[in-house]
């Protein structure tokens, strides 16, 4: 393999990597925020709203991410939504991830022991205070493992953004190989890179999980 190639194209590849990480972090954070809002609205909201949100979840989860991106990026201008590739990619990731995150939070909300909420009421806590002091803290702790898990899955989805010309890592590598004809080497190196990247993030996720779990068991035993 030609190492010089990677040196020569280093800055370009680095820019691609930064875009990948940017899209991933903003996309995951936005998806978590939107998913949380959806889950809370489904849990506490009126019935019609619940149906609408259920429909949203089913539609987004039942269609390919690539088609969603095409609707957003190529179909958007038809209804006056003109986005540059990077914002479109980030928005796409947020929309794509939100129903999965919403389901995680919904499951977490349902898993909050009813007795604790009833105990809060018996102590004359206001509903707002119960939410702030009981429901949310329990929810946050129990949701960390599945949230990390899905966020790791999302790192791989960022590669799809290259198809709608977001200059992320895969896109830059493809540009480089088109200019140098070194398709094979470049793609192979990229695969190894993603592999390492995902493994490192999974490892970090397990560490994080371990930390929250330790906190949880300490809290419960205290």
């Amino acid at each position: 393999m030609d190492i010089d190639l990677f040196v020569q194209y280093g800055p370009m590849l680095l820019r691609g990597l930064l875009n990948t990480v940017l899209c991933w972090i903003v996309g995951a954070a936005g998806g978590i925020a939107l998913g949380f809002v959806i889950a809370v609205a489904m849990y506490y909201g009126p019935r019609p709203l619940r149906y609408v949100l259920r429909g949203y979840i089913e539609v987004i989860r039942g269609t390919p991410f690539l088609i969603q991106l095409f609707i957003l990026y190529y179909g958007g201008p038809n209804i006056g939504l003109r986005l540059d590739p990077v914002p479109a990619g980030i928005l796409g990731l947020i929309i794509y991830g939100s129903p999965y995150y919403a389901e995680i939070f919904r499951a977490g909300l349902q898993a909050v022991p009813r007795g604790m909420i009833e105990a809060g009421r018996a102590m004359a806590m206001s509903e707002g205070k119960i939410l702030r002091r009981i429901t949310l803290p329990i929810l946050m702790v129990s949701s960390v493992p599945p949230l990390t898990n899905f966020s790791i899955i999302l790192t791989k989805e960022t590669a799809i953004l290259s198809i709608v010309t977001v200059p992320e890592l895969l896109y830059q590598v493809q540009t480089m190989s088109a200019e140098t004809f070194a398709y094979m080497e470049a793609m192979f190196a990229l695969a190894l890179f993603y592999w390492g990247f995902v493994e490192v993030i999974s490892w970090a996720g397990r560490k994080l999980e371990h930390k929250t779990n330790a906190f949880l068991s300490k809290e419960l035993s205290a």
Partner: protein
Amino acid sequence: MFSWSTIVENLPYLLQATRFTLLVSGLGMGLGLVMGMVLCVARLSPIRWISRIAALYVSFFRGVPLLVQLLLAYYFLPSIGIDIPPLWAAVCSIGLCAAAYIAEILRGALIAVPHGQAEAAAALGMHPFTIWKRILIPQALKISMPSLVNELIMLVKVSSLVSAVGIVELTRMSQSISAATFRPLEIYIAAAAIYLVINLALAGLGQALEKRLDY
């Protein structure tokens, strides 16, 4: 304005291309199941290096984006002189990737079958082969059914990525039609609707199957 006529006019083409979406995901699932079973057995093998290799396989195919795997196969196979039609290369890529996920699904299901049952069967003098056939596999199949249906739905969705290596399935067809008609919004929404119908049907079938397996 949202043009319904564009959708109606092009629907036959979209449906025609949908057959390839079903073909790629269906064959991918078939290959994934066969390879997944082999991998699962290898992963549970008491021989250390066999289970190591299987674990490495699973980690690689789950860690690398499928799009990168597809492109890798697309460039790699011709470069070593294997000249198979792109459609088969794509089916193989999807199947190899699905195998990694399916192996983990099956492994989880096998572990979930209570250990005492296999021990009881062994105590009754059942042959190990009979234990697998009569006790472990039927129960593991039932436990893993919801996840396997999920995996199939996932495959229908990721089959859209094979459009990137030039296979004319639903996504690629909608790209061509929207380029020709300048109506991307309508065409892509129609494509999304077709994917949604397929996946809802699969989910419904899966639920019916689960009910039948319930005893």
